[in-house]
């Protein structure tokens, strides 16, 4: 019984998606997961009794609706609920809110700058143009621009057509957008520092760059290109935490007969005669399969669970040079009650959304300088959520759970590796900063989980704790992701594939890489393509 048609290594959301499609196509599929639980970085864990921590990824927008629908994830228990709101608090006691009503949002901007209230329209329209351009590529395999195979040429033609459809001026603007820094990009629209800082966060999350670094405008797009029920750019909560996504995907996988083994770390992908034969688990157990799909990042896949002698030198070199920079940490906090932010008016709905405390580029850039100097930001960019304001399932009634994503936290520190003391100090920096705005915050804390890149790597297996499984820089996007020549989900060994965020279209809980990889595998097996197509124009 130790033989399968395909083995997927890692039960992250992409591994699960990939396995689900392979199983749905009729293959006998096994997914092996090192942790005793599934989900990878889409997990919900009860780390303090009564509290569910959505302890890695914490909000959802990128999950492709095509996959959601196609795999019947609703039937398998998934609900994604928009939360609305969001606010950036300033130390002077003011704030910039992101109201879900257009007029309220506009007035809120006008409260700071009438010019920027108008400019927000232009900004949104322009970003939406780029979103509309990029979305059809999420469920497609990138063309190899150096290849002359008909399929690559036809994909290149599709790309050319989409570019042409932008129109000449928009095409230039799009190229500019792709190459600019988020600060430069926002400077072309807005005059108010607070407005610019509030909008720039999406250009930085998960990225080891500052607002002045070229390439960060694209990162913003990466965070805007998802949608909730057609509202492009909107974010929501998976009810019960991001683990619900993994659970629903696992349900889909099992419905189609796929098997999941947890607590089964893979030691190596077995290769014989330049073909994959299966995997060997750390305990020595061998499992056979002609197809092995890795949901791990490219560095881990090629440098830890493959034998270097099975790989071309070029791949080893590319894997070593693969940029997967640690830049973020996470705090998950159980709260005894609702934290107060007295600078917000009573009854204001903004707290339900993402909360921020950085109010200008300089703070953000200095946070990045700290990172470059090998320490965590002294005034960190945080992306906070209190999901229990929207989702009552995550804490006992009246109690709250707080998820704090912390940007610019290095994987290794200038003065050596992470230690428990340093981890605590990092957590304290974040808590102190937030307490500046919330007088009762510290008193409400019942339990805190502090995760530096070190913990994220150790637990989830993301190298350096990089949430995208590889930097979202130009040299690692589209046909360069993860490496030039290996961007179509196939590994260098026959029968070996990659399906993680380390491949196109990159990080975020989109499930697109897993789906795209399944499409390629099925094509190689000569099986019918059962992966969904893009919904098209929206």
């Amino acid at each position, binding site marked *: 019984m130790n033989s399968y048609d395909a083995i997927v290594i890692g039960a992250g959301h992409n591994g699960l998606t990939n396995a689900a499609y392979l199983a749905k196509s009729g293959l006998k599929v096994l997914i092996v997961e090192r942790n005793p639980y599934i989900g990878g970085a889409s997990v919900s864990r009860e780390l303090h009794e009564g509290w569910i921590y959505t302890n890695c990824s914490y909000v959802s927008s990128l999950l492709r609706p095509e996959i959601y629908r196609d795999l019947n994830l609703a039937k398998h228990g998934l609900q994604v609920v928009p939360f609305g709101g969001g606010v950036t608090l300033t130390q002077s006691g003011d704030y910039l809110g992101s109201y879900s009503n257009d007029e309220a949002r506009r007035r809120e901007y006008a409260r700071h700058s009438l010019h920027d209230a108008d400019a927000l329209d232009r900004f949104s329209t322009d970003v939406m143009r780029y979103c509309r351009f990029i979305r059809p590529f999420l469920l497609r395999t990138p063309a190899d621009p150096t290849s002359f195979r008909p399929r690559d040429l036809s994909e290149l033609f599709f790309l050319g057509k989409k570019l042409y459809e932008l129109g000449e001026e928009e095409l230039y603007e799009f190229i500019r957008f792709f190459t600019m820094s988020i600060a430069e990009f926002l400077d072309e629209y807005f005059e108010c520092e607070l407005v610019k800082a509030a909008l720039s966060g999406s250009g930085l999350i998960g990225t080891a760059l500052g607002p002045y*670094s070229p390439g960060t405008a694209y990162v913003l797009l990466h965070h805007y290109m998802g949608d909730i029920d057609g509202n492009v750019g909107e974010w929501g909560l998976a009810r019960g935490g991001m683990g619900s996504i993994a659970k629903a995907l696992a349900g889909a996988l099992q419905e189609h007969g796929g098997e999941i083994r947890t607590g089964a770390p893979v030691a190596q992908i077995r290769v014989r005669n330049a073909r994959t034969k299966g995997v060997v688990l750390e305990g020595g157990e061998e499992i056979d399969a002609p197809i092995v799909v890795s949901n791990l990042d490219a560095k881990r896949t090629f440098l830890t669970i493959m034998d270097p002698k099975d790989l071309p030198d070029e791949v080893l070199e590319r894997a070593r040079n693969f940029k997967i920079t640690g830049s973020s940490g996470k705090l998950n906090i159980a709260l005894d009650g609702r934290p107060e932010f007295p600078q917000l008016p009573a009854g204001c709905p903004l707290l339900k959304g993402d909360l921020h405390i950085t109010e200008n580029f300089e703070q953000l850039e200095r946070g990045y300088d700290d990172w470059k100097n090998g320490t965590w930001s002294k005034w960190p960019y945080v992306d906070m959520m209190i999901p229990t304001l929207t989702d009552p399932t995550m804490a006992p009634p009246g109690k709250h759970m707080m998820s704090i994503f912390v940007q610019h936290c290095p994987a290794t520190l200038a003065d050596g590796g992470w230690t428990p003391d340093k981890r605590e100090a990092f957590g304290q920096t974040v808590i102190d900063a937030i307490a500046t705005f919330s007088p009762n915050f510290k008193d409400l804390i019942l339990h805190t989980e502090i995760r530096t890149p070190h913990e994220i790597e150790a637990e989830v297996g993301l190298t350096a704790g990089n949430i995208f499984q590889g930097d979202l820089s130009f040299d690692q996007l589209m046909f360069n992701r993860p490496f030039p020549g290996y961007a179509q989900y196939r590994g260098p060994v026959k029968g070996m594939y990659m399906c993680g965020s380390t491949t196109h279209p990159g990080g975020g809980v989109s499930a697109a890489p897993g789906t795209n990889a399944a499409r390629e595998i099925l094509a190689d097996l000569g099986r019918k393509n059962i992966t969904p197509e893009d919904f098209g124009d929206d």
Partner: protein
Amino acid sequence: MTDRYDVLIIGAGHNGLVCAAYLAKAGWKVLVLERSDQPGGAAITREFAPGFRVSACAHILHMLQAKVIRDLNLKAHGLDLGGPSIDTIALAEDGNHLTIRQRSIEGAQVTAAEKAAYAAFIERMERHAKALAPQLLKTPPRLANAGLANAMQLAGMGWGIRFGLGKKRMQDFLRIVGMNIYDLLDEVFESEALKGALALDAVLGSAMEPRMPGTVLTYLYRLAGGLKSTLTLPKGGMGSVTAALADAATTFGAEIRTAVPVERVLLEGGRAVGVVLAGGEELRALSVISNADPKTTFLKLVGARNLEAGFAHRIGNLRASGRTAKVHMVLNSLPDFTGLEQDALGNRLIVAASRKYVEDAFNHSKYGEYSDQPVMEITIPSVADPSLAPAGKHVLSAIVQYAPFDLKGGWDAHKDSFVERVVDVISAYAPDFRDKMTLVECLTPVDIEREFGMTGGHWHHGELALDQLFMMRPTYGTAQYRTPIDGLYLCGAGAHPGGGVMGAAGHNAAQAILAGDK
């Protein structure tokens, strides 16, 4: 006045002169109008103290296009490149300097493996640079709506890269072209001194630091501009290069008038028909070419109101805020640099001890401060060219970064302390430096803007960033040397392919104009 001239060129910078020479050579009646009292723009030799002369901005010549030298016969007009290529010496405080030559490195205990890696790296980068190089002397294509010839040029570029490089190298090219130099150098080298020195090449004259994506492209750009990798100190300073260009232009029949600042471009029915000088004098011609930077050209000489609003807005958004200063010093005698022979002082001395050093220097400039420990490119041109200083004495010329145009508190209040930092940093490498130097002149970006009319004091007339290059330089709608104003053209560094004493923009502008009508 009648249409005495076919074309008026605003500004006698090196590109204006190159453009003038080509057009005059083609039989056009050309008049060049220069605001200062000598031609050359920023590429002049400047007597900053009696008897002491130095190149005012760029001081090393390495990108002047061979085709331009040949076509305009510049050697016959007095161009003297001043001898063989100089070396780059990356200074180390302990005197253990790293010498970087065209194909080799030595010193600083670099290993044999590192030397081999350097040779391989340069070969790899030069191949990529060669794929770019042909584009430097061409008008950039438009991306759509521009006809067959344009589409052919675009296809040809792709084709050239694919076949010029081959599949594997093209993959490499497409990967690294968007990367930062910081990571790329890390992939290849061990020596931090070498990484620092090469990182400096990628950011010299720009508002970038080595970790910024796009810095591999600027590095390749520098290589593409000077494919032979020769660095020379032109005899008599950079002014001699523009003097040769001016001589060539006038020999071909162009006229150059100095001390005639152009007030504005004369427009009639939306078309450029001449210029109005500061005194009110009107000069007319069939076309007007501006060697001034794009912001000056469009916002001052033409005026935003005479442009369409979106275009004017884009010009207003161009990033052209310089962060490079130039420091000139009189040396009573040559200082004693730790670990350097006196005859080595004629080389290019750089202060960029590591990538982090460059990055730290840059960080200050993000917040409107000058670098606490600036990076520098230093030359003492009088070592090889005694004509630049009285006998026995010397001049030092240093490009110093980062010195932001909009310094917090203003330059008037902080220039002296900045110069002190520069002297301190040099003194770390030459302990007796303070005793040897006397007079100092410091040109901050504010001074450079005032002296040479370059907006923001930016040497390249606009940042060499990915979004301001090639078919987007200075911005789309005017990236093919034509402007939205009929009869008005660009020929300066604000146009493709940008700054550095290359002459390419002037050459390309002339070709584009000759290809059209007068």
